[in-house]
Structure formats: C-alpha cells, structure tokens
C-alpha cells in the first residue's frame, strides 16, 4: 500500500439504468483519461465503486474496462434486492472506507444527468476553501433556464424546508453530486434508505458542525430522464420523505 498518493473513490449507486449507465461510464472514463499532467484530479489514485441496487438486468462492466483505465480498479457490489439510493450509497461508502481506505469521495448519479467535468471545480473548491464537504449547485446562471419551471419551484420549496431542518444555507436541494473527505465520511451513517438520504446527509453535516461549500454543476434534464424517474411526482415523494424525517428524526 502506498502512503503518498491520496485515494479517491467515485461512489455510483445504480438501479435499472441500462444503457444510460454504460454511456455515463464511458464519458466518465473519457474525461478522467483526458486529464492533463498537472491537473489536481490526476494525482489521485482513483477507484470506482458501483453498487447495483437490485437491477432487473444485472450490471456488467467487463466490456467497458478499456474505457475505465483511468481507475486503478473498478469494484462492483450487488444488492440482492432493491433498497433505495440512500442504502446503496451507504454500501458504496462503507466499502470504499473499509476495503479501499480512500481519503476522498465523490457521489454522482449514474443516469448521466451529471457532467464528470464538474469534478475538477469541486475538487478545487474543496482544496482551496479547506472544507469537509462540497455540495453541487445546479442553480447557477448557465443552467438555471434549462431546469423545468415546476421542478424549479419544488426544489426551491425543498431548499426552504431543508434550511428549516438543518440550518445549512445552501442554494440547491437533492443534488446527488457531492465531494467529501475522510472526516465527513467517517461521520456518515445513512438510515434513510431512499431519496431522503440527501437531507439526512445535510443533517449530519449540521449536527457535527462540518464545514461546507458549494460548487456549480451542470445537470442535464432530458425528456428520457424526466420519463425515467425525474418526474415531478417523484419530487413530491421526496417532499413526503422530508416530512417523514421531520416527524421521526428531529428528536
């Protein structure tokens, strides 16, 4: 085990993403391979931890190995049944901490709505501001207009609710794009197995007085993604889960 190279894990929970996952893995691999000497992200020993959360067609990554050469190794864990994104993320995190002994962690959605290129800015934010966690923020000028109107309203409502619950002043809510260090990772124990884990994570940050910052990220809202599960009805389910957190976990 080398001691001088910091280890970075990309945690990727996935459920029935099919070809979207493979396209995303390809773009992730291409981006990391294209990093030039001197770029911060290049110096890390990178590991990819995929958690297949009980997909109907199991994830198979062997055909993609030539695209993922930027990683030291790819680790595929499979849940026997579908548990939810929060549970899958917890599995990936536990594995990356205990088996890979990673120092830094990225969480990204596997459906391809996140742009891997934003990792560079997130890493820079973490290093320059010396914070424990960096949250992705989609509400920047460039992409604000591309977010569907009703979704924008729902997200703003969730931001307000989260501010009330956690006291964290953030500009975005339920954005799965994040980066955190070991200190934060050691404190994370997600008990919300489904989408509300995003709020639970913020509660952990707030409760432990961890330092945080935001970094602009790009989110792709395609018709396919909206049909798949990014529907406004889905967003309402998140609000319901948030209410559940308020009732049961605010003691």
């Amino acid at each position: 085990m080398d001691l001088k190279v910091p280890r970075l894990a990309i945690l990727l929970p996935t459920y029935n993403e099919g070809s979207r996952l493979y396209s995303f893995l390809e773009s992730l691999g291409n981006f990391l391979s294209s990093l030039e000497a001197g770029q911060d992200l290049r110096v890390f020993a990178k590991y990819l931890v995929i958690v297949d959360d009980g997909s109907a067609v199991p994830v198979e990554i062997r055909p993609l190995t030539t695209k993922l050469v930027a990683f030291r190794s790819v680790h595929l864990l499979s849940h026997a049944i579908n548990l939810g994104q929060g549970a899958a993320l917890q599995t990936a995190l536990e594995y990356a901490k205990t088996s890979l002994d990673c120092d830094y962690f990225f969480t990204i959605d596997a459906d391809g709505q996140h742009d891997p290129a934003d990792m560079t800015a997130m890493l820079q934010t973490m290093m320059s501001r010396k914070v424990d966690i960096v949250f992705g923020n989609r509400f920047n000028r460039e992409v604000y207009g591309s977010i569907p109107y009703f979704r924008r309203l729902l997200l703003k409502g969730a931001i307000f609710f989260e501010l009330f619950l956690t006291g964290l002043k953030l500009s975005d809510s339920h954005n799965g794009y994040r980066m955190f260090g070991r200190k934060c990772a050691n404190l994370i124990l997600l008990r919300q197995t489904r989408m509300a884990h995003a709020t639970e994570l913020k509660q952990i940050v707030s409760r432990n007085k961890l330092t945080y910052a935001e970094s602009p990220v790009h989110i792709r809202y395609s018709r396919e993604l909206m049909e798949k599960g990014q529907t406004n009805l889905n967003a309402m389910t998140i609000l319901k889960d948030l209410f559940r957190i308020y009732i049961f976990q605010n003691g």
Partner: protein
Amino acid sequence: MDKTLFAAVQLMLVFALLIDWIFLARPGRRAWVLMLIGLALLSLWAQLESHGKIITRLFELEQPTELIVFGLAGILIREFFLSRVRHMRLENQVADMVRSLAIRDVRIVPTGSEKDPDKQQ
C-alpha cells in the same frame, strides 16, 4: 380536584403522549427541552383565570363516551406513528443484511492502471 388544575393535567398528559411518539422514534435533547418548556408554559397558562376557563371548557371530559373516544383516538394516532417507526427500523435491518452480503461478494475488475499515478505523469 379543581377543574382548571384537572384540565391542565389532562393537557400535560396529551403533551406527554406527543413527546412519547418523538421519544420512541428517536430520543434526543430537543424532545426533552420541548417537553419541559411545554409543561412550564401550560402550567403558566392554566394559572391565568381567563385561559383557565377556556381550557376547562375544552377539556372538561365528564361524559364516559367522550373519554373513550378521546382515548381511542390517541391510541390510534400513536399506533400509526409507531408503525412507521417500526417500518423504518425493519427497513434498516434488511438494508444492513443485504449490505453485508454485497460487501462480502465484490467483483473486482482490474483496469490495467495499477501503476502509481505519480510515475504515469
């Protein structure tokens, strides 16, 4: 017993029941602080004559039927919340089992980049 005092005690019991839900869901300092503040405020409120009358009127449960309905409603609401708590705990137990199995059976795919990134540059 003085009616105002009786009403105040009833309110305190209702409040304690509410706290019980929160307490069973997840014990925490906030629940205890809320309970103490709530009890103090209720006692203070019950001391004031005008409010005391309102409390007495609202919670004067002299009829046995009212008492039964009130009690049953309380039990039903409490059971609803407790069932949600039990469900969440069960969900987490299942998740822990599935997780430990997944971590034990990992497929590691070497990507051929096991070299030290420092040397690659």
